[in-house]
């Protein structure tokens, strides 16, 4: 049974329906990311779980108890905000101990828990500092410790890494995941950064226009997107339109080349997609589809080279590893691209 259940959740601001029939079951200790572009409703869902927004309809159950009627301070939820939201008038230790003080815990118990939390976030000696004396990454760690100190049932992370620079972002996201695993706390993480979501989540909910477009583990979301939106939003994508020759047998014609898809298709034409890394420059064993292409541009990215090419009027991108003994083709060169028909994604929706 799910620990956190969101069922038929709806939220409207005036005539604007921001969240539409949103359903999600989160298991105990699971790390779920809500991923989507700005305005897709992901933060609104999180704020409804926190109690800062009241759903227009639907239910939110934590451990089987409906919390919709409860105020935010009655929900036993920990939250970390994008803007850190540390209390500027309090030291790090006072910030971390705030929730425990509210709960009426004793001084010794608070001190012990604060020490434990500061050790957990790797800042054991900074308890006496004020927030303005810390870097952004340190402030966000303290915010995480503060949220976790009162032992909440659910941890909500509202784009906690967005205000940090790239290097800190990567290290802190890994730390967050480690701490979450260690404590086994059910967590919802809101982000618009697909790399973040793919790297640390148990499951990802890709949201679009207030609905959950696809829910699944990162591997499935990336490799088996079920809608055009998910395919486009998560990772780079090459989209092709193919003509259906025998739908039941999965036979289509792509850029004039016959291709047999692993599953049957319907209609006169079908939209297919392939990730840049699924395309290969030249022929390769196991790649049953070979497409003639003209190189448009070449971007050297260090260990990877991204090549832009035209395939029968369609623009595609492919990634190939850099090898010192194999220089990339020059723009204008006529080449062959190959791929396995199993790597072709049939786009719906």
């Amino acid at each position: 049974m799910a620990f956190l259940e969101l069922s038929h959740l709806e939220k409207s601001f005036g005539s604007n329906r921001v969240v539409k029939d949103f359903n999600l079951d989160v298991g105990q200790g699971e790390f779920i990311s809500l991923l989507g572009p700005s305005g897709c409703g992901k933060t609104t869902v999180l704020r409804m779980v926190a109690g800062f927004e009241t759903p227009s309809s639907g239910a939110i159950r934590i451990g089987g108890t409906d919390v919709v009627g409860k105020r935010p301070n009655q929900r036993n939820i920990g939250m970390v905000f994008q803007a850190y939201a540390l209390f500027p008038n309090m030291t790090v230790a006072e910030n971390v101990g705030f929730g425990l003080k509210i709960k009426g815990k004793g001084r010794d118990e608070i001190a012990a828990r604060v020490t434990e939390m500061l050790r957990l976030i790797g800042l054991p000696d900074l308890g006496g500092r004020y927030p303005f004396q810390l870097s952004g990454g340190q402030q966000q760690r303290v915010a995480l410790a503060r949220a976790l100190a009162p032992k909440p049932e659910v941890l909500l992370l509202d784009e906690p890494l967005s205000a940090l620079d790239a290097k800190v972002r990567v290290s802190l996201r890994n730390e967050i995941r480690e701490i979450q695993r260690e404590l086994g706390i059910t967590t919802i993480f809101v982000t618009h950064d697909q790399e973040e979501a793919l790297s640390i989540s148990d499951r990802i909910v890709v949201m679009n226009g207030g609905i959950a477009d696809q829910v699944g583990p990162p591997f499935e979301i990336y490799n088996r997107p079920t809608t055009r939106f998910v395919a486009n939003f998560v990772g780079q994508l090459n989209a092709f339109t193919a003509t259906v020759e025998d739908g039941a047998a999965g036979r289509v014609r792509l850029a004039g080349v016959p291709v047999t898809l692993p599953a049957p298709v319907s209609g006169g034409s079908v939209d297919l997609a392939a990730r840049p890394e699924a395309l290969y420059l030249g022929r390769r064993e196991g790649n049953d589809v070979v497409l003639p292409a003209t190189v448009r541009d070449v971007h050297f990215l260090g260990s990877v080279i991204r090549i832009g090419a035209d395939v029968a009027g369609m623009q595609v991108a492919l990634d190939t590893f850099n090898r010192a003994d194999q220089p990339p083709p020059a723009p204008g060169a006529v080449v062959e691209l190959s791929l396995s028909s199993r790597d072709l994604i049939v786009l719906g929706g």
Partner: protein
Amino acid sequence: MSLWGRLTGWIVLIFGLTYFALPLLGLTEFSLKARRGVYSLDAYAKVIADPEFQATFGYSVMMALVTIVLGILIVVPTAFWVRLKMPWARPYVEFITLMPLVIPAIVIVFGYIRLYNTSSWLPMTGSIMGTNLLLAFGYTILALPYMYRAVDTGLRTIDVATLTEAAQSLGAGWVTILGRVILPNVIPAVLSGAFLTFAIVIGEFTLAALLDRPAFGPYLQRIGANKPYEPFALAVIAFGITWACMGLIQLVTRFSKHSKVAR
């Protein structure tokens, strides 16, 4: 900047300083002339030794403190709530808080006397405590424009909404949020408002005189009408208090421990 520009700047500055400083210097100089032929602090000594000075000054200080507490209790939650939940109401609240600058104190006090006289349904002027309360309410209204603006400016320097939500998610209720999170972070602003309130209350005449309370303002007026040097000594003292308040505002603003709060 050209020489002419710099010169003009200096001329304007010297003119301004002279305009403000000369009367004050004259006032101070005259207040020191109580003893014939030499400068002395006789007038100050006499004023300070006067039991009525001590009583009225003490009364006004007490009223100022009550007014400051009342002001904080009314303004901080109002400004907080308007910023957090009712931003649409801000222009209206600002307009209301500006009213005391437009409506003279004499209108307010006549309104009070008419509404709360001994034959009214709430005869507050019928007792000393009632009249004192009425005076404190009046002072609170007079100080409202300054207190509200000071607090609102202070609230602008912190992320009220996120701090409130962070405190709520940690289990805090409204009183805790206001008392432990919001108020401590706007203390410099609240103190600025408090010192302005103090300066206003100490010198206020109209409300105290017409409500017949033994405040410092009416005492200043009485002394001014009957004594030669003491009123000037009192005026210098009153200026000193006001300037001390202004200086304290600068101090608390500049040396606030959390002036670099992360937004």
